[in-house]
């Protein structure tokens, strides 16, 4: 045991962690940027911003190195900062992938990050992406091998992102990959073009159609970070699935607020012949009811005149479920009601003031009193753990969601047949798995919970 402990400690101690002084500064900058915190520190926001800039200069490059994570336009951070989309005059092949769009994001201090997206057809190609070098007319060089200035992430789904920090404000440069140089001119894309312009009626449901101007992968970039969320929101749809950014650029499952299922895909027309749809006018978002009724439109006119797509009754019939945990907001599935709630938005229980006792009423059973001790969402399942307040039961673990196998193979997708599983354990640490058709689950945090099944 001692060997394991010491080996484990030694290995973990070697984990590279940012210098603590830089981290302190980063946290102060971030906290100072927050209005509520500005009060704590006695700063006015503008002074806080000035402090951030001063701290960056005084702390030197090390602090910028720590800050770059803060700036990188990924995972929602983008929406907090102004950004611009650019199309490239020349698309570039890069190690089996393709680049033809960039995104530029501006941080609070005016510095920008240029994100270059290389999209790959095959995941294995993305595993060996080459270094790239960008040279501006004024002699400034950005080199992806410089890890201080190029923060990159590679996506297992098949695209790579090079994020360059400290980018000159110029739209002309030469990009060199594997000794091959290409002149690049960037053209800013008017994002207003991405607005909703047309409404199509399918089976009595009005669906808004997005035209997709711009070249090649531009929309992939846009959809990845902005477009999908906006699109779903505008449509009143709730996305519950992963999407495949390689095959269709945007392909996700979504539900409207009465439980109808949609598959949303973006046709990646290969009219350009390069496998990446590098043409302008013939890509459209496709909306269908359920995947078996996939409908593709090759033009907007065709979409507008599309025949009615029937809704499959069985999808609605088997649509289960209503799981609702208010306050703690654990997870939600869908039912035939007016109030569908987005799947799984678990707040931070540690940040709530107290854990409040919870009563669970199991239909045809006794009332059991439990206290929620944790809530999480893993591998497609919402997992809530309770401990007993009223008896000698060890604890209850309630897992709500798809089976692990399904979750692992399809991300967070919920299967359309509505078959769900509850793992329920009483007086026993071993969790029993009871596959069932869940009719409804309604857990009112702080008051009661009702679980019905058949």
């Amino acid at each position, binding site marked *: 045991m001692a060997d394991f402990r010491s080996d484990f400690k030694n290995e973990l101690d*070697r984990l590279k962690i940012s210098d603590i002084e830089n981290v302190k500064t980063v946290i102060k900058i971030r906290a100072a940027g927050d209005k509520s915190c500005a009060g704590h520190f006695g700063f006015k926001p503008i002074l806080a911003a000035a402090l951030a800039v001063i701290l960056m200069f005084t702390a030197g490059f090390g602090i910028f190195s720590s800050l770059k994570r803060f700036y990188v336009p990924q995972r929602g951070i983008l929406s907090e900062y102004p950004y611009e989309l650019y199309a490239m005059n020349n698309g570039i092949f890069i190690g089996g992938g393709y680049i033809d769009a960039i995104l530029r994001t501006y941080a609070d201090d005016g510095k920008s990050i240029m994100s270059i997206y290389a999209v790959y057809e095959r995941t294995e190609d993305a595993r060996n992406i080459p270094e790239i070098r960008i040279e501006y007319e004024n002699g400034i060089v950005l080199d992806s091998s410089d890890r201080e200035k190029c923060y990159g992430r590679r996506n297992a789904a098949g695209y790579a992102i090079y994020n360059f920090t400290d980018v000159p404000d110029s739209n002309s440069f030469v990009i060199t990959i594997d000794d091959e140089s290409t002149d690049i001119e960037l053209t800013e894309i008017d994002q207003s073009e991405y607005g909703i312009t047309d409404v199509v009626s399918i089976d009595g449901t009005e669906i808004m159609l997005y035209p997709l101007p711009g070249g090649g992968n531009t929309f992939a970039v846009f959809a990845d970070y902005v477009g999908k969320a906006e699109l779903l929101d505008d449509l009143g749809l709730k996305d519950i699935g992963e999407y495949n950014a390689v095959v269709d650029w945007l392909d996700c499952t979504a539900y409207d607020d009465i439980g109808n299922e949609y598959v949303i895909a973006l046709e990646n027309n290969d009219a350009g012949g390069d496998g990446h749809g590098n043409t302008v006018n013939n890509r459209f978002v496709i909306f269908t009811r359920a995947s078996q009724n996939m409908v593709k439109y090759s033009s907007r006119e065709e979409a507008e005149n599309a025949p009615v797509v029937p809704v499959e009754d069985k999808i609605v019939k088997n649509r289960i479920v209503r799981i609702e945990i208010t306050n703690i907001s654990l997870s939600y599935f869908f039912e035939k009601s007016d109030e569908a709630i987005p799947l799984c938005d678990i707040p931070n229980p540690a940040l709530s003031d107290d854990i409040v006792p919870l009563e669970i009423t199991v239909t045809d059973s006794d009332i059991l009193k439990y206290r929620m001790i944790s809530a999480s969402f893993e591998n497609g399942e919402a997992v809530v753990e309770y401990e007993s307040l009223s008896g000698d039961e060890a604890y209850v673990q309630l897992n709500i969601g798809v089976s692990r196998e399904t979750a692992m193979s399809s991300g967070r997708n919920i299967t359309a047949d509505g078959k769900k599983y509850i793992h329920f354990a009483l007086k026993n640490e071993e969790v029993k798995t009871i596959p069932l058709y869940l009719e409804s689950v309604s857990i009112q945090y702080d008051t009661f919970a009702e679980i019905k099944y058949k």
Partner: protein
Amino acid sequence: VIDHDLNDFIEKLLEKHYAAIVRCAYMRLGNIHDAEDAAQDVFVSLMTAKKRPLTEEHAKAWLIRSVINRSVDIIRSRKYRDTLELNEEIDEAYTSIDGGLDSTVTIDAVMMLPPKQREAVFLYYYEDMSIAEIAKATGRNAVTVGSDLRRARKKLSEILKEEI
């Protein structure tokens, strides 16, 4: 707690616990950059929170629990992708000893455990916390933590082919 005291308090917490909080997040996320993001998010939350723990003991438990939850948030985030670093060598996340390629055998083994078992192993073996302390810090039942540790030891013994 007045402003300058708060600054001092959080600076001390950062100095004393930041690395451990990052490692705790790493146990869940398996990615050092995400782990640092999670840890920094938690400290920023601590600075901006209207109610915060007032003692260091409570603060450590708060930080552990918060960073675990933050890590879960990151994992389930819709924006999250299953990503690896551009320079994919996992060893680059670690400081090499004598410039050689050093082993991460135990970490690799721990990473094969379910997330909660990983956390229990980390807090027990790295942070030297008792089961009761882990239960308190993570908000879990002590019996559950104990059984997680038992299962983790059994699995680790199988993987590492040694008694844990």
